[in-house]
């Protein structure tokens, strides 16, 4: 059985730590791949750069995407992965600080599946992560999962 990966695209080390903590506390045991900027994220998804040679048939079950990123920002990552056959159907949840209308509109416009604002209150953040895991990893049916199971 192939590993079920969650790709966390997050440049802030604190947020990374807190997110990982929240995932762990919620008993989400998936492999977590962390990309610290947009370029890393794309490298992972397309098997380029530091991820050259990676089996790109294995794609993340869920992408938690921050928007404000160095180099290539979250929107650009989203645009590129939605434009590629290999990644266009991946579940992408924008997980970010702002609730600016323009970000929300842009995010959905580029094909995000969800938009979640990181709450300051860690208990609330924990709650959000728990619900995300429950929904996207358990409840929601993924096209790849069906295909894979068929084989």
């Amino acid at each position: 059985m192939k590993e079920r990966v969650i790709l966390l695209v997050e440049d802030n080390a604190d947020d990374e730590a807190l997110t990982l903590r929240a995932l762990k506390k919620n008993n989400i045991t998936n492999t977590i791949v962390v990309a610290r900027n947009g370029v890393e994220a794309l490298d992972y998804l397309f098997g380029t750069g530091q991820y050259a040679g990676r089996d790109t048939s294995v794609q993340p079950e869920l992408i938690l995407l921050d928007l404000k990123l160095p180099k290539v920002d979250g929107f650009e990552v989203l645009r590129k992965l939605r434009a590629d056959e290999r990644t266009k159907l991946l579940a992408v949840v924008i997980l970010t600080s702002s609730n600016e209308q323009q970000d929300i509109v842009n995010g959905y416009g580029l094909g995000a599946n969800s938009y979640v604002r990181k709450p300051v209150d860690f208990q609330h953040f924990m709650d959000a992560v728990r619900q995300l895991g429950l929904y996207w990893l358990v409840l929601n049916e993924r096209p790849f999962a069906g295909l894979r199971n068929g084989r």
Partner: protein
Amino acid sequence: MGEDKLGKRNLTDRLLWIGLAAAIVAAVAIAWYADKDAHESYAWNNWVAHTQSVLDALDDAQENSLAALSSIQNYYQSGDLKSLDSVSNSISKLKRQSVVLRSLTQDNASQQKRLEQFDRIERRMTALSENIIRSAPAFSQPQSIRAPEAAGLSTAVYQLFEQLYQMSAAERRLLTERTARARATSRQSTTALEIGGSIVFLWLLIVGGYAFLTTRRLTDIARALAVSEVARVTERKRVADDLRALSESERRYATQLEVVNKELEAFSYSVSHDLRAPLRSIDGFSSALMEDYADKLDEQANSHLRRIRAAAQRMAQLIDDLLKLAFVTRSEMRTEAVDLSALANVILAECQTGEPLRQVECVVQDRIMGQGDPHLLRLVLENLLGNAWKFTGKKQQAKIEFAVADQDGQAVYFVRDNGVGFDMTYAEKLFGAFQRLHAAADFPGVGVGLATVQRIIRRHGGRVSAQAAEGQGATFSFTLEVNHGGQQ
């Protein structure tokens, strides 16, 4: 006043034309009259000439008569028959002259009568002279002079003279009369021409002068108009320049405003993204400490961590409210009819969901409509109803009311509660940002809500005010743009 002037000008114009017409009529009449007089004068002059020619003929006749008389006297003295030939000659001349005079004086009956007399005398003379010649001897002798016949001839010549004299006298009278008439009519014609010419000249002078003055006035008016037109064009150009300058400065301001707005937007964006991240860290790691080191932390340490977390969360709330306030100011507004009653019901239901155990009597008047931006008006009601909900929190029988009232034709919306109210002394502080009249411990909040409400209502062109007494509830009322409110 302008119309009066116009009427006056019309009147003077009419007078001008009437004057001109009168001058023409006068000129024609005078010309006709003068012409008639001239014709008359001419006729009289003809008569004068005619009379003159009659007089000339009469003079000729007198001359012949004299010649005849002299020939008769010759004969009487010498008895020479040749003298009688001269007499016959004169008589035949007189006969011809009589014919001439008869035709000349055809118009004059009395002269014709005299000519008849003249002819009779002349015939007698002819007879007498023929008698003398017939009875005369073959040679001339003094004793053979026929004295009686000669005397008869002389008498006849005298009688002829008498006739001719009378005729001449009559003609002379006629001449005097006719000359006078000719002169008179000539003078009349001249006078008519003089007077008429003077009148016409005078008329033309007046009319021409008036026309000249009018023309000059018209010229003046035209010049004035031209000047005013130039002034107008100049003014228009100036206004256009001003407008261009204004629009330029407006454009500049608009550009500046756009820049400021862009900066504010960038600032808000940055704040909403970056300012919250550290707070998340503070709260998150405090929470981690409390969980992971629970066995090592005493109650004091836990309390400190709780305070840190609370502060971080309050700061986050502050940032959110600040961003909302900024949003209220910079967001684009659209105006439409908003069902405020429906909004109020939704918001109050949300409050109830947040605190399901509270029992609050909510009275929302049906179908309250307001003109404004739906999103911003929702923020207004969220804040006002949220406050009402919050400040009635310690009341056993809480009551929140939303209604509209007509005040001088303007719709005044109000939110009334029976909560803790506030001291009106501090009412003016109420709408300032981060102003609070209650301790955060009693009622949570950062004090941005009413500032937000005021900004929104101001952007809608309305007013917001509060009435309250400590412990007796509060009423917040607001209006929207005057011209919309009055139509409700």
